[in-house]
């Protein structure tokens, strides 16, 4: 009964990775017949790792984006979760409104923010900004990284919030009660009780967030096309450019293999965490 699922998975998701590896050792530009299609060993990898300046920029940008977006969403998500983890009227409504951004199609997010909000002349952001007395700013042109980070954090903070809120609800009232009777103030309670007990959830949120945010693509495709220059070119976007615009199968495959290696390191850590919780269960 398991076999059909496993075979299907292997064919659709694993076989392409093997083929990517195979292509990565070949010289092959689809649209240019003058370049011979042949085996070149590690040449593509050597080029990507030692010569290609954009590849290095793309790696650095990807690391920067992932750190900023995961970090930003985690801090905001934790704040939202703490606010929601109290009983107050309309709590369900507030929660529903706050998770909504996570469901928004990433291309819609990028198109709407790029136009309705960040447009330098008609955008709402600049209307608020200039009303506050500041000078008009062309956000996507002068702060492209910040704009992309803002778009992604808006989507991913709710994701972090959901996981951390589940964690907060797992902390029993007795533990908090005991801490309060011992004279712990809200700050001490947060540092000594909440944060340590939330540890595994924070770990889970960070790792899952990294897996997804490393693949950030739609926002960049729509809002900046990797620019200005290569300012917002991430690894997935650069691979897309190498295959879809330069038609270079060999180089793009080598980039793909390297992207897989980076993700695999994070995935291994995450899998270890998940299999551990698979045995014990995070919440009682």
């Amino acid at each position, binding site marked *: 009964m398991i076999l059909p699922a496993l075979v299907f998975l292997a064919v659709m998701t694993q076989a*392409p990775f093997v083929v990517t590896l195979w292509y990565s050792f070949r010289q092959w530009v689809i649209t240019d017949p003058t370049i011979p299609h042949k085996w070149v060993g590690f040449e593509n990898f050597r080029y990507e790792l030692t010569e290609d300046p954009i590849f290095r920029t793309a790696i650095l940008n990807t690391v920067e984006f992932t750190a900023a977006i995961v970090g930003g969403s985690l801090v905001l998500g934790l704040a939202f979760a703490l*606010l929601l983890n*109290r009983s107050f009227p309309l709590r369900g409504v507030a929660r529903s409104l706050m998770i909504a951004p996570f469901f928004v199609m990433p291309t819609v997010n990028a198109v709407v923010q790029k136009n*309705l909000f960040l447009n330098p002349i008609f955008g709402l952001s600049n209307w608020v900004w200039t009303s506050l007395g500041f000078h008009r700013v062309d956000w996507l042109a002068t702060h492209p990284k910040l704009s992309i980070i803002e778009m992604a954090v808006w989507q991913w903070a709710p994701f972090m919030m959901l996981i951390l809120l589940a964690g907060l609800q797992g902390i029993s009232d007795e533990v908090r009660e005991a801490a309060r009777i011992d004279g712990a103030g809200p700050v001490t309670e947060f540092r000594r009780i909440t944060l340590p007990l939330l540890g595994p959830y924070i770990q889970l949120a960070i790792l899952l967030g990294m897996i997804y945010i490393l693949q950030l693509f739609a926002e960049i495709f729509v809002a900046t096309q990797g620019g200005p220059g290569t300012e917002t070119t991430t690894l997935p976007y650069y691979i897309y450019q190498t295959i879809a615009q330069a038609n270079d199968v060999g180089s793009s495959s080598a980039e*793909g293999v390297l992207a897989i290696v980076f993700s695999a390191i994070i995935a291994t850590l995450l899998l270890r965490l998940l299999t551990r919780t698979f045995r014990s*269960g995070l*919440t009682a």
Partner: protein
Amino acid sequence: MSAVGLGTNRPGLGARLRLGALGLNLLTYALAFLIFFPILWTVVTGFKTEADAAATPPVFLFHATLANFRAVFSSDYASYFDNSLIIAGGSTLLALLLGLPAAYALAFRPSKHTPKILSWVLSTKMLPAVGALIPLIVIYKREGLYDTRLGMILLYAAFNLPLVIWMMRSFFADLPREILEAATVDGAGFVRIMTRIVIPLSAPGLAATALLSVIFSWNEFLLAVNLTAVNAPTLPVFISGFTTSEGLFWAKLSAASTMAVAPVILAGWLAQRSLVRGLTFGAVK
């Protein structure tokens, strides 16, 4: 800083605590509104005329019009919408068809290989899709799957299968074992047990799993933009090309966005209770 013990009953402390709580409540409401505002603004802009939509300072009171929605639906938007509907629905059905028996076996007949299988299944979800993209483009073009709904259904089913297996295994594991054992003793076969007992008992979980799978397929962009052209492109592809092809038509853009996003937000709200379990592959219940 001296800690104020609970025993010291200073006058006004209770009142101050209540005031603090009220402040936090107001802060939460303000934040919730602020976070939801971009969605609200998009929906509202969809009902404006183009002139009102691009007006600055922004127009808050206006005559609502349905013209944008009509215009969008009489354009080729409808065919993208159909593609999205068929591909998201088809891939979810296929993922359930393959994933439910697997989840059943993993939950009720665990062997010493079960953790390994589960871990492998999940690992397929974690590698970046962009790493599989190049051969997919080459192979799909060669095999005639490029730019077909079937091709996208197969891919999205594969990408959602780990979610189905992990989530449903975790829901199945919550079912009372005695009922299943009793049914097996009564001589019921797999299909009977599945359709009469397991699926009805885990219906809410199944619904949430299906909704999440639909949401992921509906929103997916990287594969859609690279593997489709004219026959099978989905809504995210339509939206991504909107500004370049249509210029500064914000009201129509907003109407198109609203219709692309609203079904998913509603589905997400419906699946809310099992959302965390789905997003963490059953690790958090």
